[in-house]
């Protein structure tokens, strides 16, 4: 059956997208077939058990095709972080806008640009990379992205290249007359020994209704290192979907921080594959869901090779009628001996109406491994609140301090300092206006 309701997401790309690349057309066609085969997910599917796509489909999103060329640098100032020095790439409604970006000087062996631009100038650099980590067997929203993407961020680091300054992707959404869906595709490829930091921020101007359906394919070569910090702070009415695919080579290190603050409905799928031994993957996460918000995380960590390490540490704060889902799966294949995997999901529920569905799973087929998982769902401890209040601190501030203390473990991983400070302020601001009791 066809992806009814999402059919319009597949509407023929505008003329300027026609890159004329046969291999790309083939990949798109295969993705269209995947979309048609899968249809709309239902709650009978394990991956969609707790989250309904009904709300998303009802919006009738159509592709965001017009480039937003009217924006001036001063228009986006409010979403930039003062003091944050970066190679900045700005995408507006899924499209790379060089005039708003500030790449600065790039060291040798580093290429940063828009997907569309590089598909034109050097398509061969992307031929193997597109679907290179995600593969062809993509779930619905990733397949939609593959079928319909036309721009995004590309970061290519040659062997041994080191970026000392972070790359900052600012994905800005601006409301249109009709609710739009942007489907950016990002490719981040670090060859052997390359090192970089990526900051990925999803922001909006105003409180408009739109959808972002992004896919990232990240590969880190042998002994490479990537610190990847994502802050999803979409408009409170927005829908957000991320498919993040990681391919980690021998001895590589990946540290990911996922912060989810915004959006009315947000779904993140993280898929980790180790392509070499002795690789380390550390996924940290923080989500804050209030009234009318649903934040849904699916983690899939695949240990098929021995001697790899994975950590998942996600913390959630829920208030009002906020909802969250944490579905974490760690799979250890028979031959993946000496796997070291630990998963943790802790949640703070600040109101009776808030809800979290947490489901950590370990599937272990090897016998010489170190694996653990733990989850907690609790409230603020009364004795902690009392301690603060007994020092003259009013109850609302005391609650906020404790929540920020809970979140601090994840926030402290963010760097540089201006980024950490901005996100901590946003969390504090949200808590200040949250009905916490």
């Amino acid at each position, binding site marked *: 059956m066809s992806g009814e309701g999402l059919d319009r997401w597949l509407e023929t790309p505008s003329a300027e997208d026609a890159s004329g690349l046969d291999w790309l057309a083939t990949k798109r066609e295969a993705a269209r077939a995947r979309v048609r085969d899968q249809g709309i997910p239902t709650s009978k599917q394990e991956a969609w058990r707790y989250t309904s796509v009904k709300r998303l489909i009802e919006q009738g999103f159509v592709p965001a095709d017009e480039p937003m060329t009217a924006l001036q640098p001063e228009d986006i100032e409010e979403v930039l972080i003062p003091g944050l020095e970066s190679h900045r790439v700005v995408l507006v409604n899924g499209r790379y806008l060089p005039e708003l970006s500030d790449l600065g000087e790039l060291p040798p062996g580093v290429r940063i640009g828009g997907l569309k631009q590089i598909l034109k100038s050097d398509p061969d650099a992307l031929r193997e990379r597109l679907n290179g980590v995600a593969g062809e067997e993509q779930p619905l929203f990733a397949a939609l992205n593959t079928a319909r993407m036309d721009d995004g961020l590309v970061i290519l680091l040659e062997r041994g290249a080191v970026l000392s300054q972070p790359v900052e992707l600012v994905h800005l959404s601006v409301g249109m007359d009709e609710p739009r869906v942007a489907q950016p595709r990002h490719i981040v490829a670090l060859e052997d020994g390359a090192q970089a930091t990526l900051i990925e921020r999803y922001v909006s101007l105003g409180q408009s209704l739109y959808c972002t359906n992004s896919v990232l394919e990240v590969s880190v070569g042998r002994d490479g290192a990537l610190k990847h910090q994502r802050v999803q702070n979409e408009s409170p009415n927005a829908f957000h979907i991320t498919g993040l695919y990681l391919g980690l080579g021998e001895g590589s290190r990946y540290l990911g921080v996922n912060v989810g603050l915004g959006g009315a409905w947000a779904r993140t799928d993280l898929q980790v594959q180790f392509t070499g031994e002795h690789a380390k993957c550390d996924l940290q996460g923080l989500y804050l869901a209030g009234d009318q918000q649903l934040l849904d995380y699916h983690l899939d960590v695949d240990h098929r090779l021995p001697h790899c390490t994975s950590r998942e540490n996600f913390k959630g704060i829920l208030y009002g009628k906020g909802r969250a889902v944490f579905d974490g799966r760690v799979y250890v294949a028979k031959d993946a001996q000496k796997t070291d995997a630990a998963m943790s999901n802790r949640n703070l529920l600040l109101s009776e109406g808030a809800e979290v569905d947490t489901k950590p799973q370990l599937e272990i087929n090897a016998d010489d491994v170190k694996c653990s998982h733990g989850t907690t769902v609790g409230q603020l401890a009364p004795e902690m609140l009392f*301690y603060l209040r*007994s*020092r003259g601190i009013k109850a609302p501030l005391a609650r906020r301090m404790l929540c920020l203390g809970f979140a601090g473990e994840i926030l402290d991983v963010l760097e540089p300092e201006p980024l950490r400070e901005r996100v901590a302020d946003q969390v504090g601001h949200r808590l200040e206006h949250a009905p916490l009791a």
Partner: protein
Amino acid sequence: MLSVKGLKANVGDKEILKGLDLEVGPGEVHAIMGPNGSGKSTFAHVLSGREGYEVTGGSVSFEGQDLLELEPEERAQHGLFLAFQYPVELPGVNNTYFLKAALNSIKKSRGEPELDAISFLRLMKEKLKVLHLDDSLLKRPVNFGFSGGEKKRNEIFQMALLEPKLAILDETDSGLDIDALRIVADGVNALRSPERSMIVVTHYQRLLDYIQPDYVHVLARGRIIRSGGKDLALQLEERGYGWITGEEEAA
């Protein structure tokens, strides 16, 4: 300063305080001693406004105000301070941030200007010296991973910073070795002043060697059954509580 009359309080269905009377004047140090289960800690908690204690009778007036009507933070803002027997660990809450929030909350409630970061740091440095505290404690989360002695010193440090009118020290000596006890007691003694009163709750006379009280009260079965000077504490040390309470003291 503090006037407690016929105070009765329950924990759950059980009556713990059964008509407690106590008058504390400005600058006075009162020791409250008593066997385990006599209601000492309950009394300290009721004064500070902790949840889970139901006051069923009597009154507490603090500087002319009905203390029992106030929220815990309001009591602190009016100048009451409880040094906890078991200071609570607050993972992720930075000690300096906490101390500044507390001091400024109190100042704000009194209509006084809040301290900026620099004046606050200066004030902290000054108070740290009094307690021989290492300033690395300030960078750590509140009480988190502190040793027993560090926790107690952090309590007295907070007291030094917040400058209460009435401080209640709830078994501050418990779990301290003799050196730590001396440091804590020195800190407390440095804070004695004609305007600041203290209630020192303790099981053992030991602490009173270092913090000399003006008055000693014996609390048993929810009432003060004997009051006297500091000699009373020495007698208790020698003879145990049994000769007053008429009971065998629990070992």
